[in-house]
């Protein structure tokens, strides 16, 4: 029997990766040096195709591989940020040239990526993008503005959604490009938020250039390709929320990893606060004595009910997936549920903290963490798809309710009323 046809099991995958790590793991290697070995062996991204740095394994085995890495403290490939979305999109829609040029450097962490989708005039209505892509001679020339771009100031490459045809309907005129961020036509400015952080950027294009081979799929396919990126963003949302933990282990590779985590995770350092920090609630209530206030106890209990139910709903969805069952409604609710949890957590933190919640930074409890929760939670119900959009998705895709009558998809995009954005 051809060994490639042999059915892999959890045990066979576990023993294979364990043996490989035993022979190869070496903490004295440099981070990139080690990750190149992961690319060659396929253990860095086991669910990727064999010809592209993976092992062609079903995605369910990733957890086993991760466990084996964690067991001996082995470092994995670069996973944080937009680079994983870029990889997933390139694997699905990219040319061999794209795969050749980008995938390995994504896994090694040498390249940072950013996502150039949202615009000042199109947030929830992302297909309403008005950044222009005009063909001039042998190049694409880009003009316009993007916003909410994480890591744009560090990124080598951007995933760009732009309008290449104004005479067709909204979703049909978009094109998807891979844009070189390090060029004179691209300017990046940080965007300051209500919680003082500036995790995102505004990106301005003035005659920025894209080489023709950096078009992904065809002109007109931009929306389809962007949907792939967004789908992976939603699926990976849980993963992004997992805080990358640097270890204090000795060895060159761990030093490299610590530096990478510090730099990559910098924009995300307020994300735990944005989710409400439910983990702090009971302890804080005990420390402040508010645990004895019957009204606050009710509010804490409400929060714990929501937070636990939401956690168990995610576990149900995962269990069904592991059993190979079609996804039920429970898989589509996490984003909306996490908004409810975050809002209730902010209420509860306020009740527990009392007048101290009037203060900020060093003058406020936990060196400003509580204050940061209170002014970061509003982001949860907006970022990555507003609650309103989530409800539309749930009602239309899960509950099969009809769409609102459309006023923008049945005519050339140039005739669709849109925001006037000064730039």
């Amino acid at each position: 029997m051809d060994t490639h046809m042999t059915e892999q099991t959890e045990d066979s995958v576990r023993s294979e990766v364990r043996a490989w790590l035993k022979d190869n793991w070496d903490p004295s290697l440099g981070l990139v040096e080690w990750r190149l070995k992961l690319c060659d062996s396929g253990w860095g991204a086991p669910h990727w195709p064999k010809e592209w740095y993976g092992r062609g394994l079903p995605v369910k085995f990733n957890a086993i591989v991760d466990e084996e890495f964690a067991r001996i403290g082995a470092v994995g490939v670069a996973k944080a940020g937009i680079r994983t979305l870029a990889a997933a999109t390139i694997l699905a829609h990219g040319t061999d040239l794209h795969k050749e040029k980008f995938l390995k450097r994504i896994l090694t962490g040498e390249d940072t990526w950013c996502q150039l989708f949202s615009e000042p005039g199109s947030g929830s209505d992302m297909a309403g993008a008005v950044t222009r892509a005009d063909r001039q001679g042998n190049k694409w020339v880009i003009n316009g503005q993007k916003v909410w771009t994480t890591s744009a100031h560090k990124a080598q490459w951007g995933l760009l959604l732009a309008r290449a045809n104004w005479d067709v309907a909204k979703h049909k005129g978009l094109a998807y490009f891979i844009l070189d961020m390090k060029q004179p036509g691209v300017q990046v400015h940080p965007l300051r938020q209500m919680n003082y952080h500036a995790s995102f950027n505004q990106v301005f294009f003035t005659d920025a250039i894209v080489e023709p081979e950096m078009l992904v799929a065809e002109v007109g396919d931009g929306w389809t390709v962007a949907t792939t990126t967004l789908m992976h963003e939603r699926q990976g949302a849980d993963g992004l929320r997992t805080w990358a933990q640097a270890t204090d282990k000795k060895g060159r590779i761990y030093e490299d990893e610590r530096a990478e985590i510090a730099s990559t995770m910098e924009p995300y350092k307020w994300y735990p606060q944005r989710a409400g920090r439910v983990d702090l609630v009971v302890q804080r209530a005990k420390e402040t004595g508010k645990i004895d206030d019957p009204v606050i106890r009710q509010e804490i209990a409400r929060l714990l009910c929501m937070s636990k139910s939401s956690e168990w709903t995610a576990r149900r969805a995962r269990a069904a997936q592991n059993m190979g069952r079609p996804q039920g409604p429970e898989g589509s609710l996490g984003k909306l549920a996490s908004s409810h949890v975050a809002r209730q957590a902010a209420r509860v933190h306020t009740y527990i903290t009392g007048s101290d919640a009037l203060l900020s930074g060093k003058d406020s409890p936990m060196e400003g963490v509580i204050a940061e929760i209170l002014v970061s939670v509003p982001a949860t119900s907006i970022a990555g798809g507003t609650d309103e959009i989530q409800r539309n998705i749930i009602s239309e895709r899960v509950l099969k309710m009809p769409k609102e009558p459309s006023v923008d998809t049945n005519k050339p995009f140039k005739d669709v009323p849109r925001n006037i954005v000064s730039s």
Partner: protein
Amino acid sequence: MKFSFSNEQEEFRSGVRRALEARSPTTEVRKQMATETGFDREGWKKLNQELGLTAIHIPEAYDGAGFGYGELSIVLEEMGRNLLCAPFFSTAVLGTAAILNAGTEEQKKALLPAIAAGETTATLAFSEDSGLNDAASVAMTATKSGATWRLEGTKSFVLDGHTADLIVVLARRPGSTGDEGLSFFTVEGSAQGLDRKLLKTMDETRKLARLTFNSVEARLLGTEGAAAAPFARTMQQVIVCLANEMVGGAERLREDALEYVKMRMQFGRSIASFQTTKNKAADMLVDVEMAKSAAYYAAAALDEGDDDLPAVASLAKATAAEAYLQTAIHAVQMHGGIGFTWDNDTHLWFKRAKSSEILFGDANYHRELMMRNWKH
């Protein structure tokens, strides 16, 4: 912890659902709820024996099927969905749980086989006129007289108390207070000195009775003076079961309301195409699915002997209470005027949502209980 139902459990669920749909359409629910007994004794006996419902979680040693709370919860969820009028909750949950938790081996062997076989209906009488759900509020006294005991006092809000063949009663030693001196007793429904009065209930599908005990002869169940712990355990099991029944009802209301708005046309379009309706429907799905997750988790926690059960049980009940009632409120609203009429079925579940919200402690009560039992 288990987070999914097995294929066998899913098949079992479909079988129960089909049987209940065939035997208990809302025309039948309306017929039964208008009767004094609240169910059709012969019809229930037949359905119960065909499907082996009351035997499900009774151990095989007592002629039961030996399944767990996972399977019992499936039956309850389907009954909540269907609003079956039958003394199942009183018999299989309340009465059986008390006997299993408190009874001696000999008593279990004597009492449970008839329940498993569907020959005997049972219930548990613990609340009194105060309507409180804690052991400390029990005032009924039990006095030893020779080989037997005599019960004196009143029990109220007793589920199916007017029809149960066997009544498990929580009473106390005269002069004792709090958790001290409490014992379980069993009493025949037909016992001398027992006056059973059917109360008029808001939710007519749930029959409650007030029982007056005038020196009623009773048998001690388990150990004298030691009922506080088994009673607490019983109540945890009971609220987990009720939470599972509740999420079945909530899901049915949600589905029916969704079907209605998809069909209803106003302003020349389906009202399901209005965002305000879609938002509500999405929120209802979130509420119901979250409550289902909590109820399922709590049932699994019972089966797996989880240490967090006391907190988890209250969490599931509080979550189901809010979700079911909110779903019922939305469901009436989505139906508009017709949803407020007697002929439309929505009110049957609305009232069940309301009665379930209150029964065995409302959400505020269980949130407080949950905080007391929270270990983390």
